[in-house]
């Protein structure tokens, strides 16, 4: 019961935070220079047409009223229309979110072996040369901005060994194989960034577990090294790793923004940057709010997971 109460409390806090985030986003977009009506009409604007459009978009209403109306529509699942294309935002989002989900899946598929294998190698060869070498490599990679890593991969896999396309332009008609090739470079970038973040923690966790009594016991029973590692050590090191993975998921919502833009991948992240560049207020509000929702949910999952999996956290 105590656990349930903690979890419900955590969810309640998340919803409250999200509400506050929506307020912050709305206020920031409100102060965007130039009002929405003049942005839609552009140079053809006459004072009369501006006035009519303002009336139609309820721009003359006080800001708090508009905030409440906007929030009410969102809760009912209506994100409004984009300014630049005047299409419903829900319609625009569909394919973009699908692409980003595919990209994230691809990145996670790369992330898992790329974090587990080096961490296991390092933990088993603690303080040997290979451990130090891998530590240095991961320190260098962790210091690499996403856009730089993406650019290095471009040099390697486009300029030097032409394996993948430099631009990940995909649409409905892209064949599956081409789609996968388009995912390769952005997926690799995100996978590597997430993996180096996890590897350092996973190595330390594994070392801690390998020192534990139950591992000594398993070794003394005469089990093979392989079996000790796979059946006894790894599962016990997984708990903190799940937490790191949830945090990586939270990272991903910000990470896709830069990486998708580098490869011109038509996903959710590049939609967000485009919306900001075009000052498309409703689209900015929708995309930033969705980003924050995913971020908050991922962090909540990380916390709830930690509470459920680690009884020691329950008392506090």
């Amino acid at each position, binding site marked *: 019961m105590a656990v349930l109460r903690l979890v419900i409390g955590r969810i309640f*806090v998340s919803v*409250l*935070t*999200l509400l*506050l*985030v929506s307020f*912050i*986003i709305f206020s*920031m*977009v409100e*102060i*965007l*220079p130039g009002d929405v009506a003049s942005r839609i009409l552009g140079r053809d604007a006459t004072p009369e047409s501006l006035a009519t459009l303002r009336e139609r978009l309820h721009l003359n209403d006080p800001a708090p009223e508009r905030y409440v109306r906007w929030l009410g529509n969102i809760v009912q699942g209506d994100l409004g229309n984009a300014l630049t294309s005047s299409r419903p935002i829900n319609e625009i989002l569909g394919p973009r979110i699908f692409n980003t989900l595919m990209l994230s899946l691809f990145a996670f598929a790369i992330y898992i072996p790329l974090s587990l294998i080096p961490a296991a190698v390092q933990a088993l060869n603690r303080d040997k040369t290979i451990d130090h070498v891998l530590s240095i490599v991961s*320190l*260098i990679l*962790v*210091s*690499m*901005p*996403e*856009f*730089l890593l993406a*650019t*290095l991969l*471009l*040099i390697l896999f*486009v*300029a030097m060994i032409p394996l993948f396309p*430099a631009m990940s332009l995909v649409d409905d008609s892209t064949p599956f194989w081409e789609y996968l090739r388009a995912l390769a470079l952005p997926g690799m970038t995100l996978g590597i960034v997430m993996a180096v*973040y996890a590897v*350092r923690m996973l190595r330390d966790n594994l070392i801690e577990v390998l020192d534990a009594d139950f591992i000594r016991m398993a070794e003394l029973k005469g089990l093979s090294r392989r079996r000790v590692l796979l059946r006894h050590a790894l599962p016990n090191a997984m708990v903190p790793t799940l937490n790191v993975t949830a945090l990586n998921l*939270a*990272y991903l*919502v*910000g990470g896709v*923004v*830069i990486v998708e*833009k*580098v490869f011109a991948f038509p996903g959710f992240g590049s939609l*967000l*940057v485009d919306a*900001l*560049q075009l*000052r498309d207020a409703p689209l*900015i509000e929708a995309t*930033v709010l969705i*980003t*924050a929702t995913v*971020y*908050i949910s991922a*962090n909540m999952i990380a916390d709830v997971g930690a509470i459920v999996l680690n009884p020691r956290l329950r008392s506090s």
Partner: protein
Amino acid sequence: MAVAQPPLTAPPQVLGRFWRRSPMSLKIGGLILLVHLIVAATGPFWAPYGQAQMGAGLPLSPASFAHPFGIDQLSRDVFSRVVHGGHIVIFLAVSGTLLGLVIGAVVGLLSGYVRGWVDEVLMRFVEAIISIPFIVLGLLAISAAGPQLAGEPVLVIFVVALIYAPRVARMARSAALEIVTKDFITIARLRGESAWSVMRRELLPNATSVLLVEFAVRAGYAPVLVGSLGFLGFGMRPPTPEWGLMISENRALLIASPATVLGPGLMLASLIVGLNLFTEGLARILGRTVQIASR
């Protein structure tokens, strides 16, 4: 009773001893940082070409002895531009981090000391701002600032501070919560000192090592922020030789002349590696653990 003080050692000897005792990461990181600082401070005086000087040679020339990082589309010497950019990147990163640290520390320490509803409201806001991924928050803030301010160094500094202040505040608050349990805080409160004075004279000195490490970690990531904003076209404007912006500009030349991208990339990566190594060493000396590249 006066305790016999050990004789003061001459500064060079102190430095020597400090050097021998410090962790390897601090030494290597410190050396890399020193090289970067020297280049940033003196570079504009010895760079072969001006920061936006055209006519350095044939556009798109690959790397050569005379032009180690090649020549870009506008026939500018990329090496000179990279050298000129050093102080810009370091200045933006350090001042943004410093501003964020000061704001965050004041808000966090006060909030943790006064508690009550002020603390509750402030921390809800802090949590909310942290829930917007920092690159998204940065882009949003820059759009909100409008075209008049776009490309101004002040804007980049403010955005870095805006991103860091809430994260520092959360850290400072938890440090303050630990310090307020000490007796000397109770005594200061009983003396009738104001919250501001308690914060400045009691909390701040006791949170120095936490804040120092926090500064180092954040400063290590700040060049990434500055570079990412520049790369996406939301940071400094051309022809500023900011490294992220240069990488974005020269990306089209990737196949003809990879050096024009690798040059600024190498500088940016080595600066961050240096900062991170230094931070790790510093944290070890201060007896703290850090998560490098905390995002």
